[in-house]
């Protein structure tokens, strides 16, 4: 029976973690993509790598050190960008290389790689422990709940920062909260696809849904559905064909993106004709 895989504890934990994390990534990712911070997640994941290496070096639960290092770096770089006017892509380059360099340095100091470190780099959703599952699910639910509460000011802020400021939204505080949530999301996602593929989960479902969705809510729901279905299908395929789940999930997302791109090219999602028709009626 195909549903036999659901009887395994590791599979239940993997699916639960995967679904919750993919929802979180889709939600925060839509804001990141629209703010042109697509690579911010990638940069933060490299910083998280440094944090994990620090955890192994200090012999502390590595996810905790990754949380501390990523969130504080995200807040620090946001402050630095504001005070020094460093451009977004340059800030990402600095983050990416310095975070990874710190990781490499600490690993070399602690005499080489370990299996655990590899699982953080490439993901190991089916090896998630009960402790990891509880932590990742509760942190992700916290991020989702916060995003739901702050969705209105966050959408306004993402659309136009100046207008949001005039509207009375505390944009600076909101920005700090947002980058902290992004950093937390990256850490929660590491187990699913690994540090090297996190940005795919943040960016791919969202750039695909932006091509299809009409309103903001609609676009976010499409992104979440695509992401969740890619995770469930990816985990199932990886189990039956003995493939790495992270690569399978991301390749499924890439396939969806390319498929939608081709469909759009051939006019399947083109609303142009309808719009012109509406326009002529309206005028």
């Amino acid at each position, binding site marked *: 029976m195909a549903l036999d895989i659901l009887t395994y504890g590791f599979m239940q934990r993997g699916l639960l973690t995967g679904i919750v994390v993919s929802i979180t990534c889709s939600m925060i990712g839509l804001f990141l993509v*629209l*703010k*042109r911070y697509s690579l911010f997640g990638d940069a933060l994941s490299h910083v998280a790598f440094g944090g994990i290496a620090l955890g192994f070096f200090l012999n502390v639960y590595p996810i905790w050190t990754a949380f501390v290092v990523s969130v504080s770096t995200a807040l620090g770089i946001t402050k630095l960008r504001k005070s020094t006017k460093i451009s977004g892509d340059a800030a990402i380059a600095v983050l990416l290389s310095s975070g990874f360099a710190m990781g490499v340095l600490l690993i070399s100091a602690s005499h080489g790689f370990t299996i655990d470190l590899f699982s953080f780099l490439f993901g190991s959703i089916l090896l998630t422990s009960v402790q990891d599952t509880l932590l990742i699910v509760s942190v992700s639910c916290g991020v989702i709940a916060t995003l739901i509460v702050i969705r*209105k000011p966050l*959408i*306004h802020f*993402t*659309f*136009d920062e*100046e*207008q949001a*400021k*005039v*509207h*009375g939204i505390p944009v600076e505080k909101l920005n700090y909260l947002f980058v902290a949530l992004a950093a937390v999301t990256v850490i929660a996602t590491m187990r699913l696809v690994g540090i090297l593929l996190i940005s795919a989960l943040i960016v791919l479902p969202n750039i695909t*849904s*932006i091509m299809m*969705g*009409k*309103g*903001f*809510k*609609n*676009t976010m729901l499409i992104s979440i559905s695509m992401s969740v279905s890619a995770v469930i299908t990816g985990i199932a395929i990886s189990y039956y064909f003995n493939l790495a789940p992270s690569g399978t999930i991301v390749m499924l997302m890439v396939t969806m993106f390319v498929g939608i791109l081709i469909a759009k090219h051939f006019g399947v999602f083109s*609303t142009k004709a309808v*719009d012109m028709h*509406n326009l002529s*009626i*309206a005028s």
Partner: protein
Amino acid sequence: MPVNALDVDSVSVSHNGILAVNKISFNVQEGDLLGIVGPNGAGKTTLFRAILGLQNYQGKIKLFGYEGHSYTTLLSMVGYVPQKVNFEPNFPATVYDVVSMGILPKKKLAKGAALIQSCGCCWNRIFSTSSKDHEKIGESLKIVGLESFKDRRISELSGGEQQRAFIAKALVKEPLLMILDEPVTGVDMDVQNKFYSVLRKINKENKITIVWSSHDLTAISDLATRVACMNRELFFHGEKEEFFANKDMLKTYSESAMQLHMHKHDM
């Protein structure tokens, strides 16, 4: 004595040591439609940004007689339409989504209303107090003539239609004051005329105080109740009849703008 909607008192703004706005003072009374004219680089946008709290300045600015924290509270009830809203072209927001961003939380509205009442001013609400948010959005779209566009993506609209959507977004918050910074620059005459009729309607029917900058002297002479003319400094502030009767003032503003104005009136 009634309180002014806006008091600008000796306001200066400098960018890297260069004065963009030099000791400008004027006031706007409730219900006024003040047209601000001045050549490009005159500091109109900088002045607006100072009023909106987006720019540091020297001097004093009061909203309905308030400064400080109360000013910030009332600022959220100011509708602002810039020359161009810089949004991500792929932003998946419909016109309805964009207008809904303008809705103020009820607590904020109540705070602002209490401040306005205590200073003895009249808040001309556009919608009834019982109106729900989606009714307000529908009404705002109706005022600017975009009801049938509500489900379309904002990026699919033309420049003029987008500006009308942003006016609806400013209207939906039931503004005490609207600040419009050359909102129809670069759009065709038909859209400009539609925009002007919206402007007239919200000023006359909804009694909303408006501060509006434009290069279109004909529109200013048709719509404004008062005029201010600036080029880093304020050259004139007063009744529009006085401004348009003063040929020297028109010349100061801009030779080319004056010619355009005269040409249109001769036709």
